[in-house]
């Protein structure tokens, strides 16, 4: 969950912290803000959830395109729970199989993408994304979608790997050749040695055995010491 509010404009903050968040008139402001997030590669989950809530209460104001954009943005912050939290606010019939309308179909498609990412099946994710033009239409509004996803994938890989074969990583990142080299060296800061990509040690991938020891505070002995004074042996 990302609560980075540094990019949140003041007027949005104002609406979120007042009852205006329930005012249907603010829908357009939030919609513009989603648009802005898509263009500027920023992300504001609380504002997006507030908009979904307004749609939930006022279904006649719903704009399907904005909802799918929010869902696509939430994909770019996986593995946080945001995507699921957005789904919870959608109408209950949006997830029924088979889909009842084109909107439900789009939601289900995005849901399947999200499940692939959550299950770390990155190769399948890229294949699915390429398999249908509908996917391209859905993510087109979100600037840098592929790169944002790639960075997230890279960070989960860095959590659990120290070395990984080039071939495998190419499939996971859906990059080959120079593009692969520059992404791995530039954006990730990893080293390529022949067929192997080396990921520097970090807190998550060192897997060090730790022993948590008991922390003893002096206060715990207060009563014993007090008693020792009270009853001199």
């Amino acid at each position, binding site marked *: 969950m990302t609560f980075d509010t540094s990019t949140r404009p003041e007027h949005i903050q104002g609406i979120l912290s007042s009852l205006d968040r329930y005012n249907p008139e603010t829908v357009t402001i939030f919609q513009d803000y989603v648009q802005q997030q898509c263009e500027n590669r920023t992300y504001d989950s609380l504002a997006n959830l507030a908009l979904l809530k307004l749609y939930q209460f006022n279904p006649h104001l719903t704009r399907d395109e904005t909802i799918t954009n929010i869902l696509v943005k939430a994909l770019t912050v996986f593995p946080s729970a945001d995507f*699921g939290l957005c*789904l919870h606010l959608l109408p*209950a019939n949006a997830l029924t199989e088979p889909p009842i309308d084109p909107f439900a179909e789009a939601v289900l498609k995005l849901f399947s993408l999200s499940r692939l990412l959550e*299950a*770390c099946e990155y190769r399948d994710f890229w294949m699915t994304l390429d398999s249908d033009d509908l996917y391209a239409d859905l993510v087109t509004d979100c600037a840098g979608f592929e790169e944002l996803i790639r960075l997230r994938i890279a960070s989960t890989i860095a*959590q659990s790997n*120290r070395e*990984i074969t080039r071939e495998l990583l190419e499939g996971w990142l859906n990059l080959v050749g120079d593009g692969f080299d520059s992404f791995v060296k530039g954006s990730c800061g990893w080293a390529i040695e022949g067929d192997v990509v080396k990921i520097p040690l970090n807190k*998550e991938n060192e897997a060090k055995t730790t022993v948590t020891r008991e922390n003893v505070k002096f206060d715990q002995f207060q009563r*014993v010491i007090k008693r020792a004074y009270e009853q001199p042996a």
Partner: protein
Amino acid sequence: MLASQNFTGTTRRLREESDTDDEVLASTLVDEALRDDGDYDDMESAGGSLQISGENIQQRLAAAATPLDFQAPLQNRFDSYDNYCTLFHFILNSDGPVDLELPTVGSLSHYVDTPTGQVDATTVASCGLNAPYYWAWDVIDEFIYQFNSFCSHRNVVARKEAGGSEEERKLLCDNPQTWGCYSVLNVLYSLIQRSQMNEQLAAIKKGQDPKQVTISDIGDQMEPGADLGAIVSGEYGSRPLYRMLGYFSIIGLLRVHCLLGDFTLALKTLDDIELNKKAVFARVMAAHFTTYYYVGFSYMMMRRYADAIKAFSHILVYVSRTKNFQKNAQFDSITKKNDQMYALIAICVALCPTRLDDTIHASLREKYGEQFTKMQRGGPDALQIYEQLFMSACPKFISPIPPDFDKPESNIDPSQHHLQIFMADVRNSMLAPTLKSYLKLYTTMDLNKLAAFIEVDPEVLRTQLLVYKQRSRQTRWIEGGLLEGDTVNTSDLDFALQGDLIHISEAKVGRRLVDWYLRNLAKTY
């Protein structure tokens, strides 16, 4: 103003009006936010027809806190809604704060809720003192309960599952505004604002007495234009009735947001309340209990299992320690929720293995032993158990808008919707228990060898390892608002892949000796 339109007899008329009702209600909600003190006069006229006279106010107050029969016919539910509207309108929009004698409740036993449980002179006296707490809690609790059961019932009727007569359908269809989401939220937010509860809590957090300090003292988060010299608690908020209604409305909001599936906002609502035993809600057992149930549940839905487990165990330990003292009606009513929380904690622990408090662990085994073992074992068989327990223990989710009566098939039970999303996450971790049991045995291991042991494709195993790692990193609360937290490793097992070689490490907990030592020392001395 706010209530003049929807808390009064005019609600009936409004119901028959067009689709824009929602917007009317919404804008009144907003008006309230922008309300300027002192323009109360113009709302008088609207409330006129339903002025509450001195005699029947007592009845109404008592009625508001009395549970509606589960099987109550629809008409009673409509009437009850109107009663609440009138009552809240009276409380919120009279000329200045209302002075109320709270109902002297017949059976004191219902209100005795001290850990000692002895009904002696002091308890009775303190009951009188504490009456606003109990009464206010009961009103808010019952208000939301009726809202919840009304919406669920409406949804069932619309789905045509459990029958429901044509008459009922027609009545519900014609009155979409009754027990509307906006009006319920409106009441709760108005009660909070009228009592200036958030400001008061902010002051308390800073260690100040809200009845003494002025608004300028707590500074930072004030709306522009607030009277900086005014006392924080205000004309309304310094009275127990308003203070308690305002306070419990915050808990009510937590609950309503959760019922609507907005778990983030649910937890955000509690920003100003500190969760500990000294909190005001802890004085009313049912409130204490409800708060932790919804907090824990929201955390669970946000996949913050460690936090959910903490919330559930806190309250379950508390209940198990005090249960012997609480043999009254109030306690019976929470027994069901108690079992539900055991089911939820079982789910959380299965998804995020954690050592539980001994007493809770024992009760868990007693209540859900078999299911718990199956869930801990994982695999496809466990999925069904997860579904069963989730459905038996989740709140009765509702949809904020009236269902579509003309298309029964398009109305899905909201619980199914939430279950589906939750299960997507559960499904993802079905191999984790097996994986863990093997990894625990080694310090280094070859990926292909391990894959052969558990009979999966090596590449499947590789992704499963990534999943395991990813799921063991959770946001956990450290301090501040309930939504805050740092990412931590919640598993006692960690590993790293070097090509096909798995390096495994364990986080061991050293033996805890001090407690044992002190206990024995205390025995001998």
